[in-house]
């Protein structure tokens, strides 16, 4: 489905050109759940943004379903079937959650029921959010979940999530994984997730470890994961509390598990 070949991405800074991605090649087969992990600053997010078209690579090629998309715009990639959930979602004054989901689904007549379904899948009580503006009145966690819901609504062949767990609290974490599994089932598509979370790594088909702008390791989960446990590439999940104690769809936003787990590490 997706083939990244000898990708290179440099940025120009005050001290001159700085290499973010030196040479990355990887494959995302049809229907696969690929988790990209590795130390912070290694180039994971830049890779995801190059695939989505947010960043323009300075070398190499990206093929999506056998088509060279390296120079294609974000819009054209989206139309081909690539979705991207930003690590730090943007806010919009005046655009309501329902508007955003209509834009995401490409269906101006999207029913309230369908929109609510997407919100429920990311652990938001739909009736409380559907008419909220996607603005500063939303917490970081709420915004993050709405960002993920917007990608769910796209039903794309390839969905890329950049650290989706940030801002997602413990009880909804299992829902998030269910949502990923549902996307995979419904679209027969592939999912690429940038994550350090052990629980996300545990459901990967394939794990790619990126370090210092290169692929350090790549392979089946059972082959790669044991070597990562206990390292910065696989933070253990927070096991405190029970995810089942709160109503699946209408619980409070209790903060960021990722922030809690990662506390002091970054």
């Amino acid at each position, binding site marked *: 489905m997706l083939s990244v070949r000898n990708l290179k991405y440099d940025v120009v800074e005050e001290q001159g050109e700085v290499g973010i991605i030196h040479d990355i090649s990887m494959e995302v087969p049809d229907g696969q759940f690929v988790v990209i992990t590795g130390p912070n600053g290694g180039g994971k997010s830049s890779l995801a943004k190059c695939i989505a078209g947010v960043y323009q690579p300075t070398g190499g090629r990206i093929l999506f379903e056998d088509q060279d998309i390296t120079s294609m715009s974000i*819009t054209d990639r989206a139309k081909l079937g690539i979705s991207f959930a*930003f690590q730090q979602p943007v806010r919009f004054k005046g655009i309501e959650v329902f508007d955003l989901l209509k834009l995401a689904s490409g269906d101006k007549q999207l029913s309230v029921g369908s929109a609510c379904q997407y919100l429920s899948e990311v652990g938001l009580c739909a009736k409380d959010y559907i008419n909220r503006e996607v603005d500063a009145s939303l917490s970081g966690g709420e915004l993050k979940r709405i960002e993920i819901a917007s990608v769910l609504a796209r039903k794309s062949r390839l969905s890329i999530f950049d650290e989706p767990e940030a801002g997602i609290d413990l009880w909804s974490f299992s829902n998030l994984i269910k949502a990923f599994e549902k996307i995979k089932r419904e679209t027969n598509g592939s999912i690429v997730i940038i994550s350090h979370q052990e629980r996300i790594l545990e459901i990967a088909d394939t794990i790619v470890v990126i370090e210092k702008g290169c692929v350090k390791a790549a392979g089946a989960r059972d082959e790669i994961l044991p070597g990562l446990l206990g390292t910065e590439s696989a933070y253990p999940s927070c096991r405190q509390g029970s995810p089942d104690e709160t109503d699946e769809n209408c619980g409070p936003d209790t903060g960021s598990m990722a922030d809690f787990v990662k506390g002091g590490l970054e």
Partner: protein
Amino acid sequence: MLYLDDKDIEQRILAEVADIHTTPTGAYNIRYNGKAQSRNSTANIQITSREDGSGINIDIKDGTVNETCCIPVVIAASGHKETVTNEFNIGENCDVVIVAGCGIHNCGNQDSEHHGVHRFFVGKNSKVKYLERHYGETEHGTSGGNIMNPTTELFLEEGAHVEMETTQIRGIDSTRRITSAEVKAGASIVIKERLLTNGTQFAESDLTAKLVGEGSSANIISRSVATDRSRIKFVSNIVGAAPCSGHTECDAIIAGDAKVLAVPALDADQPDAALIHEAAIGKIAGEQLMKLETLGLTAEEAEAAIIDGFLK
């Protein structure tokens, strides 16, 4: 001076400015090229011509609830210039909606102008929703400008509440809008203004709310978009002359070679006046465009969606 008697133009403009598609129900007065074209009063809402011929008086009886009064103005003549004064006397304990839009269709090379003064006396404990939409269109190949200068004066008695929504999205080349409100004890006013200018258009809005009674409040929210070489000037002033609360917010999106001037002012006459202002001017953030592009929108569609949402 060229006058058009085009029913299609009239219907289209009535739909744009007042959402009127058929003969309205309730009280209404439709003004067309300077003359009252049709009028209807109800048992509770009386519409009469002012003695000096300058406009109409709208008298709403005490206790009138769930009624609407619609007084749109259509100008479909190039070079037509008019000054209109309409006075609303709203009794006590009412709950009414007033729709007052103005649309200009300019088919020639002369400027068309509408200067409207709307004066509201809102009785004790009455609730009024006032909707005002301004719209203009110019026929292809003509150069006549559309000029709209509305003045709104509001006097709120104790416990009254007014929500005023003004929208000017398209086709008005020049506007100078003056709004003033005097708000007595326990009364409140919310003013929401939406403005979009393009080309070489100019829009100026000057809002003043005087909070003169204990427990009075004002909330002024302006959102504007200036594109191309257009200019917008927004001045808001909340005067706290009693224990009161006031908030004014001005957000503007600027694009192209446009200019936006926002001047929010607070004027507190005594220590229990709690007044806040916020103002922000900026272009559409690149991240916002990118997000919508990842949903499959083109850059142009993304910009339009952001502006539509912002001005909603």
